[in-house]
C-alpha cells in the first residue's frame, strides 16, 4: 500500500463523512418523518426497539472504541517519544490504524441510527430536536473537526516521525479533545432522556442549558470516558493476544506479549476507578429520583446486577490469572507463588460474595423452606458486604500486579527488611480494615453507610495502592535484578484470558447500557415523553441478555474483520504496490 499523502487522507475522510451525512439527510427528507401524525413506525420482523437497540449499542461500542483507543495510542506515542522507544511508537501507530478504520465503521453505524430514529420514532425525535436541536448541529461541526484531525494525525505519522514529533503528539491530544467533546454532547442527549431537566411538565423548553446540564450528564460522561479507556486498552490487549497466538517468531511473540501486558495494565488501572464513578452516577440518579434509583438498584434490575457482578469478577479473575501466569516468565517469580494461593482465595471469596443474589429466584417449594429471605444469602446480598467484597477482590488483583512488578528484583537498600515489613503491615492492615468497615456497615443506618463508610473503604483502597507503589519505588531503587523478564515466554491460555477480558467487558457494556436505558421504563424522556409504542414494556432479562449477546457477537465479528484487514496489509512486502 502506497503511502497516502496527508491532504489526500483528510479529504478522503471529509468526503466520506459528507457522503454519509448526505445519504442520511436525503433518506430522511425522502421519508418526511415529521410529517406523519403517527407516533411510531414499525421496523420489519424484529420491531423498532430491537433494531434501534442493536444499532445503537453497536454504534456505542465502536464509538467507545474510537474514543478510547486514541487515549491509549497517544499515551503510548508520548511515552515512546520521551523515552525514544521505537516499540511504543509502533504500538501507537498500530492503534492509530485500528481507530482510523473503526472511525469509518462508527460513522456508518451512526448514519444508520441517524436514519432510523426519526423514521421509526418521529414524535419522540421531534421532541428531542425541539429541546436539544442546536446541540445536534454542534455535534456535526465537532464531527467534521474530529474527522479532519484524525485523518491528519494518522496520515502524517511517518512524515512527522522524525521532525515535529511534539506537534504530532499535540495533534493526538486534539483528537482526544474532539472525542471528549463528542462524548459530552451525546451524553447530554442520553442524560436528558433519563434525568430530564429544563423543561416544563408539558414538555415545553424552559432552559436549554438546564436540559443539557442534567443530573446524569457529567457523571455519565465521566463514566463513559473512563470506560472508554478501559475498553480501548482491552481491545488493544485482545489485539496483542490475537497477534501473540498467531505469531511464530520469538521477536514477534516478545513484542506482542509486552504489548498485551501494557494494554492489560492500563485497562485494569482504569477499571479500578470505574466502580467509584459508577457509584457517583448512582448517587446522582438517586438525587434526581429516588424511585428510579430503587428501580435500578433493587427492583426489576436486581438480577442484572448479579450478572454484572459475575462478569466484573470474571474480568478480575482473567487479569489475575494473566498476572499469575506471568510470574512464570519472571526470573525469581517462583518465590511469589506461595502468595498467589492467598490472593486466589481473597479474589474467590470476593467474587463469590459479589455475585450472591439478594433476592433469590427459587421454586415455591424452596421458598417455603427458606422463607422470604435466606439468612445467609440475605446478609451477603446487601450493599455492605458487596462493597467490601468488591474492594477485597480488587485489592487482591492490585497485589497480583504489585508482586509481578517486583518479581525479578531484590531490594538492595539498607532498610530493605523494614520496608518489606511495612509493606506487609500495610497489606494486612488494609484487608483487616476493609473487612472491619464491611462488618460495621451492617449496624449503621443506610445513609451513613452510603455517604461515609463506602467512601472510607474506597479511600482506603486507593490509599493502600498508592502507598504500596510509593514504598516500592524507593525500596526497589537500584535493586538487584535477578534476570530480565522473558517476554514471549507465555502459554497461549494466558492470552485467552486477555481476550476473555475484552469479550466480557463488551458484553458488560451492552448489559449496563440496557440497564441505563431500561431505567426509564415506559418513558422516552422520563416523566415527560411517554412511550406508547407496542414495545413500551421491559423485556425479560433473558431476552435482554440475548440481544446483548447478539450485539457483542456482531461487534467482535466486525472487529475481527478489522484485525484481519490490518494483518493482511502488513503481509504485503515493504515498498510493494497493491
Amino acid at each position, binding site marked *: 500500500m502506497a503511502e497516502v499523502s496527508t491532504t489526500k487522507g483528510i479529504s478522503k475522510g471529509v468526503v466520506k463523512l459528507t457522503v454519509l451525512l448526505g445519504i442520511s439527510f436525503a433518506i430522511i427528507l425522502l421519508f418526511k418523518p415529521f410529517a406523519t401524525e403517527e407516533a411510531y413506525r414499525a421496523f420489519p420482523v424484529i420491531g423498532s426497539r430491537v433494531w434501534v437497540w442493536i444499532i445503537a449499542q453497536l454504534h456505542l461500542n465502536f464509538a467507545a472504541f474510537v474514543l478510547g483507543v486514541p487515549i491509549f495510542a497517544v499515551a503510548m506515542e508520548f511515552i515512546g517519544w520521551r523515552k525514544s522507544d521505537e516499540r511504543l511508537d509502533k504500538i501507537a501507530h498500530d492503534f492509530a490504524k485500528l481507530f482510523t478504520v473503526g472511525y469509518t465503521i462508527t460513522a456508518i453505524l451512526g448514519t444508520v441510527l441517524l436514519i432510523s430514529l426519526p423514521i421509526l420514532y418521529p414524535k419522540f425525535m421531534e421532541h428531542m430536536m425541539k429541546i436539544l436541536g442546536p446541540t445536534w448541529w454542534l455535534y456535526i461541526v465537532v464531527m467534521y473537526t474530529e474527522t479532519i484531525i484524525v485523518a491528519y494525525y494518522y496520515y502524517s505519522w511517518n512524515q512527522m516521525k522524525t521532525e515535529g514529533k511534539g506537534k504530532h503528539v499535540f495533534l493526538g491530544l486534539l483528537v482526544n479533545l474532539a472525542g471528549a467533546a463528542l462524548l459530552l454532547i451525546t451524553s447530554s442527549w442520553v442524560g436528558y432522556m433519563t434525568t430530564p431537566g429544563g423543561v416544563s411538565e408539558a414538555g415545553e423548553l424552559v432552559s436549554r442549558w438546564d436540559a443539557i446540564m442534567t443530573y446524569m450528564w457529567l457523571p455519565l460522561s465521566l463514566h463513559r470516558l473512563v470506560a472508554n479507556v478501559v475498553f480501548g486498552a482491552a481491545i488493544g490487549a485482545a489485539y496483542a493476544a490475537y497477534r501473540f497466538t498467531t505469531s511464530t517468531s520469538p521477536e514477534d511473540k516478545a513484542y506482542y506479549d509486552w504489548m498485551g501486558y501494557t494494554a492489560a495494565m492500563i485497562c485494569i488501572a482504569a477499571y479500578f476507578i470505574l466502580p467509584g464513578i459508577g457509584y457517583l452516577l448512582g448517587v446522582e440518579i438517586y438525587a434526581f*429520583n*429516588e*424511585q*428510579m434509583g*430503587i*428501580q435500578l438498584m*433493587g*427492583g*426489576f434490575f*436486581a*438480577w442484572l446486577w448479579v450478572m454484572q457482578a*459475575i462478569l466484573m469478577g470474571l474480568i478480575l*479473575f482473567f487479569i489475575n*490469572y494473566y498476572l*499469575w*501466569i506471568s*510470574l*512464570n516468565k519472571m526470573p525469581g517469580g517462583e518465590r511469589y*507463588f506461595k502468595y*498467589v494461593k492467598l490472593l*486466589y482465595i481473597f479474589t*474467590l471469596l470476593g*467474587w*463469590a460474595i459479589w*455475585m*450472591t*443474589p*439478594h*433476592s*433469590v*429466584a*427459587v*421454586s*415455591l417449594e*424452596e*421458598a*417455603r*423452606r*427458606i*422463607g*422470604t*429471605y*435466606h*439468612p*445467609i*444469602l*440475605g446478609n451477603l*446480598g*446487601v450493599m*455492605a458486604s458487596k462493597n467490601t467484597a468488591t474492594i477485597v477482590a480488587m485489592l487482591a488483583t492490585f497485589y497480583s500486579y504489585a508482586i509481578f512488578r517486583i518479581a525479578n528484583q531484590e531490594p538492595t537498600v539498607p532498610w530493605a527488611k523494614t520496608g518489606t515489613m511495612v509493606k506487609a503491615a500495610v497489606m494486612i492492615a488494609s484487608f483487616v480494615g476493609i473487612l472491619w468497615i464491611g462488618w460495621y456497615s451492617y449496624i449503621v*443506618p*443506610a*445513609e451513613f453507610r452510603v455517604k461515609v463508610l463506602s467512601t472510607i473503604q474506597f479511600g482506603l483502597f486507593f490509599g493502600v495502592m498508592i502507598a504500596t507503589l510509593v514504598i516500592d519505588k524507593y525500596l526497589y531503587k537500584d535493586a538487584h535484578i535477578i534476570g530480565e523478564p522473558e517476554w514471549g515466554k507465555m*502459554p497461549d*491460555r494466558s492470552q485467552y484470558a486477555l481476550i476473555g477480558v475484552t469479550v466480557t467487558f463488551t458484553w458488560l457494556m451492552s448489559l449496563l447500557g440496557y440497564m441505563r436505558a431500561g431505567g426509564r*421504563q415506559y418513558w422516552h424522556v422520563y416523566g415527560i415523553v411517554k412511550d406508547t409504542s407496542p414495545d413500551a*414494556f*421491559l423485556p*425479560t*432479562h433473558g431476552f435482554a441478555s440475548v440481544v446483548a449477546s447478539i450485539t457483542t457477537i456482531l461487534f467482535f465479528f466486525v472487529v475481527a474483520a478489522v484485525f484481519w484487514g490490518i494483518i493482511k496489509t502488513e503481509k504485503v512486502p515493504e515498498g510493494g504496490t497493491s
Partner: protein
Amino acid sequence: MLNIYPIIAGVGIVISIISAMKKAPFFNYLGILMAMYGLLKCVEFVAPPLPGQVILMYMAMFVFTFLIYFSIKEDQFQAFLRPMKTVLADDDKKILRVLIVYIMIPVLAGYITYGKVKPQLAPPTSARIVHPEPPASITFRGEKISLLGAESPVRNDTANRDKHFEAGKRIYYQNCFYCHGDDLAGNGYIADAFNPRPLPFRGTDTIAQLPEGFVFYRIAKGWTTLPAGSTPWDSSMPAFDTFLTVEEVWQVTFFIYEATGNKPR
C-alpha cells in the same frame, strides 16, 4: 434420615488432601469440587438450605476458578492434564478408557440430556419486581398526594410520637399482621397461602432500603397500581386507601419502622 452430603464433603476433602500430597492436581481438582458441593449442601444444617440456583452459580464459579488455579504453573498444568491424556491415548489403558470415555461419560451425558428434555412440571415463572417504581403522585380517596421526596407528617410530629406509635401498632395488628407477621418478619399465619410471600420488615434489606414515601405508596395503593413486572395478579396486598385514612397509613408506616428499629432511607 440419612444425609449423604456430609459424606460427599468428607470424601471430597480426603481425596483432595491425598491427591495434593501425591501431587495429582486433577484428582485434587475433582476432590475440591466434590467437597465444595457437599459443603454448600450442608448449609442446611445451620440455616435454611441454599436455593439450587445459587448452588449452581457457586459450583460454576468453582469449576472455572479452580481450573484456572491448577493451570497457573506449566508443570502443574501438565500434571493436571496427564490423567486425561493417559486415559485417552495410552494403549494399555484400554479397559479404563472404554469404561470412562465410551461408557460412563456418554451415559452421564445422556442422562443429563434426558433430565433436560423430559417434560417437566415447572410452571412459568417470572422475575418479580419487589420494589416497583411508584408514580410521582397518587390519588388517595380523591386527594392528590405527591410522592417525590414525600415526608412523613407523623415522623416529624415528635411531640406526639407515642400516640402515633400506638395508633400505628393498632392499625398494624388489625390490618397487616396476618400476612406480615406478629414479629413483622413476613411470616404471618396465612403467609403460606400466598405466592409471592409477604415481605418481612425486619432486617436491613427491605424497608430499611426504602424511602418512607415509597412505603406509604405501597400501603395506600397495594396491588392496584403495580406494574406488570410486579405480577399484580398475584398480589394479595390490599389497597389500604379503601380502609385507612392518610394519617393512619403514615402512622402504620411509622410503626413498622420503629418496631423493627429501621430508619427510612
